[in-house]
């Protein structure tokens, strides 16, 4: 059984790699870009799910961490020439003017700085619970955005940064997404992951079982911030242009949507939901166009397609609280049982860590 699952996983991974190779070389740029976004939203969704879904901390600071990550990679990877072009109002601060890093170290530093920010905001804010934590983290994200709007000689303020080298390709985005899935699966199924879940289930009981609440909450928050920073960095080098207005609350909301639809506390759910939400956001673009419904005409309203997601979210919260997967995970055994329509031999198989 175990061997069979191992082969199945290997075969699927090979197929994924072949597909990525094909997409990378032959598919049109628009589709490749959507696939990249899917992978990036997977990373972001997983990082938020670690904090909100697995540890049960209601945090809304993701846009802030992403902003840090995006700006760090953007500033580090921008060529010296584009920096001069970008910073025409006020020249860039001297130490940053001549740096031009390769992508990977820039991305890594983006994650690390975002994690440090996560630690600094987490240490005081995680003493709060529930709604208060949500408000504090939301405030943090807004503060980051306002700071970035006003640090003209570092972030170019409201003008944003243009001409960021398009380093992000399918190999980067899917590679890091796969790494994130693996990391989260290993973390969640370790003793530390169990401690996080215990905190989600019952803080008082967890504390009485000797779990240091503060340490574990800060740990979860910092790891989440790290991956959010990396996701932000990948996004900056995919889009090529960033400005502070990108990192408003709606961005956090998009990720929250993904994890709620997918199931708070499910890695598989987040991955599936990240793809569904990202693809349908593009597919539903026609809703933003003017529509002639025969009897009357709806003028083009941009953001109309988001109404679909809002309604969907309401339905999920009201009638289907667990989302797509609840806290369940994919396993080959369950999958094969499902498609062969046989009765499952045992309920609740364990996640094998290689989806």
């Amino acid at each position: 059984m175990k061997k069979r699952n191992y082969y199945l996983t290997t075969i699927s991974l090979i197929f994924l790699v072949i597909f990525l190779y094909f997409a990378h070389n032959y598919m049109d740029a628009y589709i490749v870009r959507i696939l990249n976004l899917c992978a990036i939203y997977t990373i972001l969704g997983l990082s938020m799910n670690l904090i909100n879904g697995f540890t049960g901390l209601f945090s809304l600071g993701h846009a802030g961490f992403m902003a840090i990550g995006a700006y760090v990679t953007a500033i580090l990877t921008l060529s010296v020439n584009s920096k001069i072009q970008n910073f025409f109002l006020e020249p860039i601060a001297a130490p940053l003017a001549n740096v031009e890093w390769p992508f990977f170290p820039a991305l890594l530093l983006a994650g690390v700085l975002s994690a440090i920010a996560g630690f600094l905001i987490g240490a005081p804010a995680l003493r709060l619970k529930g709604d208060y934590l949500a408000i504090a983290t939301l405030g943090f994200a807004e503060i980051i955005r306002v700071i970035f709007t006003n640090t003209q000689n570092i972030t170019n303020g409201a003008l944003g940064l243009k001409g960021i080298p398009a380093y992000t390709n399918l190999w980067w985005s899917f590679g890091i997404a796969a790494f994130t899935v693996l990391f989260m699966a290993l973390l969640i199924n370790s003793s530390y992951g169990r401690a996080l879940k215990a905190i989600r289930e019952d803080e008082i009981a967890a504390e009485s079982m000797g779990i240091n609440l503060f340490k574990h909450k800060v740990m979860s928050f910092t790891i989440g911030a790290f991956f959010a920073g990396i996701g932000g960095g990948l996004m900056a080098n995919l889009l090529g242009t960033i400005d502070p207005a990108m990192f408003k609350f709606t961005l956090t909301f998009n990720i929250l949507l993904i994890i709620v639809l997918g199931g708070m506390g499910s890695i598989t759910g987040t991955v599936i939901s990240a793809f569904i939400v990202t693809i349908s956001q593009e597919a539903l673009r026609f809703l933003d166009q003017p529509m002639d419904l025969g009897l009357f005409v709806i003028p083009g309203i941009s953001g109309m397609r988001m109404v679909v997601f809002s309604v969907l979210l309401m339905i999920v919260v009201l009638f289907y609280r667990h989302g797509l997967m609840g806290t369940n995970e994919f396993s080959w055994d369950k999958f094969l049982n499902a498609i062969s329509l046989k009765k499952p031999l045992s309920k609740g198989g364990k996640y094998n860590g290689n989806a």
Partner: protein
Amino acid sequence: MEMLRADNITMQFGGLTAVKDFNLVLNKGEIVALIGPNGAGKTTAFNMITGVYKPTKGKIYFKGKDITYLAPHRITKLGIARTFQNIRLFKDLSVLDNVLIANHLHIKSNLFEAVTRFPRYRIEEKEMIKKSLNLLEMVGLTNVENEKSSSLPYGMQRRLEIARALATNPEVLLLDEPAAGMNPKETEDLTKFIKQIRDDFDLTIFMIEHHMQVVMGISKRIYVLDYGVTIAHGNPNEIQNNQRVIEAYLGVENNA
């Protein structure tokens, strides 16, 4: 040997004094009970000992060390474990996970070693699972380790809570109404069970209990609380004949 000592601990919530000047001594190997009518402050006393509440006044010592203001997880690590009056299991997690979580406080591997499944972590994990399965077997929960803990029948949930508390390697075990909701047969089994774990794990047990059958059967000494005040302290025989205890439980005889 003196394991736990409380000196005049008092807990005030605003103007309400939930527990007043509570004194407690637990010697090694003893089973001591805390009884009293509803709302007498028994669970509050437990919460002070385990660090959930910080006493307004007074000191608590564990093996001579002052633990009054320590956080609950530190107190547990030192060797005081507890169960809860209204069962507090990790409901959505499996039976085995519930017990494994209580092993986490003694883990030596760091986060990095755990995520990369370093050899040291693998060994620790294996030992944790072995120890947890052993504990589950001892409390009579075999073959249910993969069930969701909330799906167990009530009596089993109680035993799972005790197994979970034992997994933290305690020296002092605090049981908050372990026999609540049990029928006479289960109560009798529980009485034997408590004695047995005391001997097997070398424990000192302090318990809150309403079932007099359990209390009188196994406790060496009994403390009686009423409205936060200790109204009696002594061996079961003394308590049964104590006028104030009878009054607190049955009311004062009215001769007028």
